C-alpha cells in the first residue's frame, strides 16, 4: 500500500498554495505559475544548487535558500522576487557574462539561449565587471556535435544528463575555481570518447550555445527538452 500523500500549505509571494510533502519550493512555485529563475536546475536531473539564481527568502531563515533543493514546510512564507533577490540575480548573470566569451550576436543559440533570455528578463543591460576574455578551446572533434567552452557556464547539466539518464558519464569537470572546465572522459577530444553514444542529450539540456549540433549557423540552434521528463518517468521516476 502506498503511504498517504501529506499536504503542506504555505505562501509564496503572498499567495496561499498547497503542496505535496517532499516537493521543493521551485516545483511548487512552478505549479502555481511562479517561474523562479535557474540555470543549473532542470526537471528530471538531480538538483545541485550551484547557480544560486533560484535563491529565495524564507521568513525566519537566517540565510537565503535555493528553491531547487529546499523542500516545502508547513506554514513557510516564501518570497521569490524581492528587490534584493533581483539585484543578486542580476549580478550573478553579470558575473557569468564577464567570465567567458559570450558573444551573443554570433552565437548559434542567439534568440534561444537561457542565459540571454534571463538577462533580458531580469533587466541586465550591461555588465559592470571587466570582461575576462579567457582563451578557451572549441572541441569539434565529434562527428555531429561540438562544444564551445567560451559559452559554457558550468551548470553541469550535461554532466548529469549523461551520467544519470544516458548512463555513459562522458562529461565531468576538471580544475577548480575560475579554471574549472567541462571535459570529455579523461580530458580528451570528445570525438575520441569510447563511451559517448552520440545520443545528443547533453546538446539539448545545455542552456547556452556551449554544446550544439554541427551545421547550425548563428541563431539556428534550438534546444529540445521534451524528452527529459518522459525519460525519467520511463526509468521509474527518479524525478
Amino acid at each position, binding site marked *: 500500500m502506498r503511504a498517504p500523500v501529506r499536504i503542506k500549505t504555505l505562501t509564496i509571494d503572498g499567495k496561499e498554495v498547497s503542496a505535496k510533502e517532499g516537493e521543493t519550493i521551485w516545483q511548487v512555485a512552478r505549479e502555481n505559475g511562479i517561474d523562479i529563475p535557474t540555470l543549473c536546475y532542470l526537471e528530471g536531473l538531480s538538483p*545541485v*544548487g*550551484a*547557480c*544560486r539564481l533560484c*535563491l529565495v527568502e524564507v521568513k525566519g531563515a537566517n*540565510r*537565503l535558500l*535555493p528553491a531547487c*533543493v529546499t523542500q516545502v514546510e508547513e506554514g513557510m512564507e516564501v518570497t521569490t522576487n524581492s528587490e534584493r533577490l533581483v539585484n*543578486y540575480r542580476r*549580478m*550573478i548573470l553579470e*558575473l*557569468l557574462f*564577464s*567570465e567567458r566569451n559570450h558573444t551573443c550576436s554570433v552565437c548559434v543559440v542567439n534568440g534561444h539561449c537561457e542565459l540571454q533570455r534571463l538577462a533580458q528578463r531580469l533587466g541586465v543591460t550591461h555588465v*559592470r*565587471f*571587466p570582461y*575576462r576574455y579567457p582563451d578557451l578551446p572549441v572541441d569539434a572533434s565529434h562527428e555531429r556535435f561540438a562544444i564551445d567552452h567560451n559559452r559554457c*557556464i*558550468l551548470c553541469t547539466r550535461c554532466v548529469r544528463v549523461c551520467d544519470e539518464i544516458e548512463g555513459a558519464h562522458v562529461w*565531468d*569537470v576538471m*580544475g*577548480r*575555481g*575560475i*579554471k*574549472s572546465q567541462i571535459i570529455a572522459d579523461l580530458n580528451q577530444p570528445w570525438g575520441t570518447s569510447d563511451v559517448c553514444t552520440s545520443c545528443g542529450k547533453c546538446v539539448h539540456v545545455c542552456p547556452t550555445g556551449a554544446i550544439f549540433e554541427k551545421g547550425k549557423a548563428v541563431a539556428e540552434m534550438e534546444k529540445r527538452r521534451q524528452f527529459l521528463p518522459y525519460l525519467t518517468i520511463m526509468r521509474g521516476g527518479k524525478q
Partner: protein
Amino acid sequence: MTVDELQQLVAKEQEAKQRYKSCINVCVATGCIMCDSERVKEAIEEAVKERGLEKEVIVKGVGCLGLCSAGPMIYVEPEGIIYHKVSPEDAPAIVQGLISTPVERLVCPSEMPFFKRQVKIVMENSGTIDPERIEDYIAVGGYQALMKVLTEMSPSEVIEEVTKSGLRGRGGAGYPTGLKWSTVAKANGDRKFVVCNADEGDPGAYMDRTILESDPHRVIEGMVIAAYAVGAQQGYIYVRAEYPLAIKRLRTAIRQAERLNLLGNNIFGTTFSFHIELRIGAGAFVCGEETALIASIEGKRGTPRPRPPYPAEYGLWGYPTLINNVETFANIPSIIRNGGDWFAKIGTEKSKGTKVFALAGRVVNTGLIEVPMGITLREIVFEIGGGIPEGRKFKAVQTGGPSGGCIPEQFLDLPVDYESLTKVGSIMGSGGMIVMDETSCMVDVAKFFVEFCMSESCGKCIPCRVGTYHMHELLSRITSGIATMRDLELLEELCDLVKNTSLCGLGQTAPNPVLSTLRYFRNEYEAHILDKSCPSGVCPIRRLEEVPV
C-alpha cells in the same frame, strides 16, 4: 587488552621512567624538525653515550613545545628547564648541564608569560610524551577515558557529559559538540560513521597538524569515545597530504592502538568495535568543508553540496555521520576523565575550555599557544606574544584565516570567545592568529586572503567562482592606485553578493577580510584610491598614465 592489562602497562611505564634520573625531551614536530632538531637529538644521544649516561638519562623525541620561532626546543625533566635555539654543537654542553648548571645562553626562561599564561588541555602531553609510543600516552593516563566510557558509561551518559562540558566545535563555526553528537546518535541508519576533519588549510595555521604530530592517540581516543556515543562502527581521519609527518604518526598510532586492541573488534573485551582508516586529501582547501570532505572520502570530486540534509543525518554514503575537527576530538579524553563540569569551569559563559592558536606575524614570540577562552587579545599579543618587535606600533590582529577578519586596536580588550569575535566582524575560526603592525597595508592583507579564496574556490557555484575573481581584480586595481570610488562601491556590492549567495562556507566567508578591513581601515582604501598612495608603503602604486587601457 583488558582493564587490568591497561593498569599494568601504566605501572610498568611509570616504573621504567623512574629508573632514569633525567629526561631530555627534544621537539620533533615539523617546526623544530625544520630547524634541524633531529640532528640535535642524535647529537645529544651521542653525547649521552660518550659520557656513559645511557642508564641515567633518556633522550626522547616529543611533540611541540610551543615557541616555534625559537626552535629547536628542548625540555629537560625533572628540572623543567627549557632550552631554545639549540644546535647539534650544543649537545655536550647540555648533557654536561645535567650534572652541573644549565647552559645559561640557551635557557629559555620558563617564567616568561609565553609559558605561564597558557592553560593546557589539548596540548597537555605535547612536549612530554613520545608521539610514536602508545605506552608513553598510556603512562600519562591515556585511554583511561575510553576505558571508563566502555566499562562504566552508557552512550547517552557520554553525550550528556560532553553536552555538560559546553564544548563547541573547534573547526571554526562553534557548533555545540554535545548537540551534534546527540543528533547523530538519534539519527536512523544501519551504519554510522565518525570522521575527523584534519584538512587544516588556513594560511599560517597549524594547530591540528601539531596536535596530530605531538599527541595522535589523544585524537584517536576522542574518536573512539565519539563512536561509542553515537553508535558508529567505522571512522575516517581526513588529513591533507601536505602533512606527511602527521600522517606517518597517525599511521603508527592506529597500528599501535589496534595491536593493543584499543581499536578494532571488541575493544576492552566489550561488544563495541570501531575501526579507523586514514584518507589523504589532495590539498584542496574546500575539502575542509564537511560536505566536500564527504564527497572526497567517497572518491568523488571534492565539492560541497547544499545543506540540509546535514551530514549528521545524511553523510558518508548517505549514512548518519559525525564530523568533528581534530582539536574537538582532542578535548574529549580530558572531558571524560575530569568531567564535563570541570571543563565548563574554564572559559566564558558561552565558550568553554581552551583554544589553541597559531600565533604569527609581527609579534616577538610566534608559535603555538593554548589559552583559556575569555582571555583578551591584548594578553595574547602583548603578554604571551611579547608585543610588537622593534618598537613598532600594533595595527590589527587577524583571526580565522581567510574566513576571518582584522580586529583593530580599539578591541584589544575583547575577550576571545565565539560571540565576541563574531560581533566585531571576525570569527574564532580554527585558530590562525596573525598580528599586524603599522608596516602592514590592510588592503594588501585583504587582497592576500581573497587571492587565497579565489584559488581555492571549487568552481561549483557562480558567486564564489567568479565573484572572488572580480573581488581580487578590484582589490588589485585599488592596490595599484588605478581604482575609482566606483570600483570601491562595486567591491562592496560584490562582497555582499558573495557573502549571501555562495553555496558553502568558503564563499560565504571569503568577503570577511575585505568587509572587516573596510569597516575599520576604510581610510586606507580611500588613500589608495583618492590620494594614490599606500600609507604603509607596501603597495606599488602606478600612475594612471602608465597603465595600459
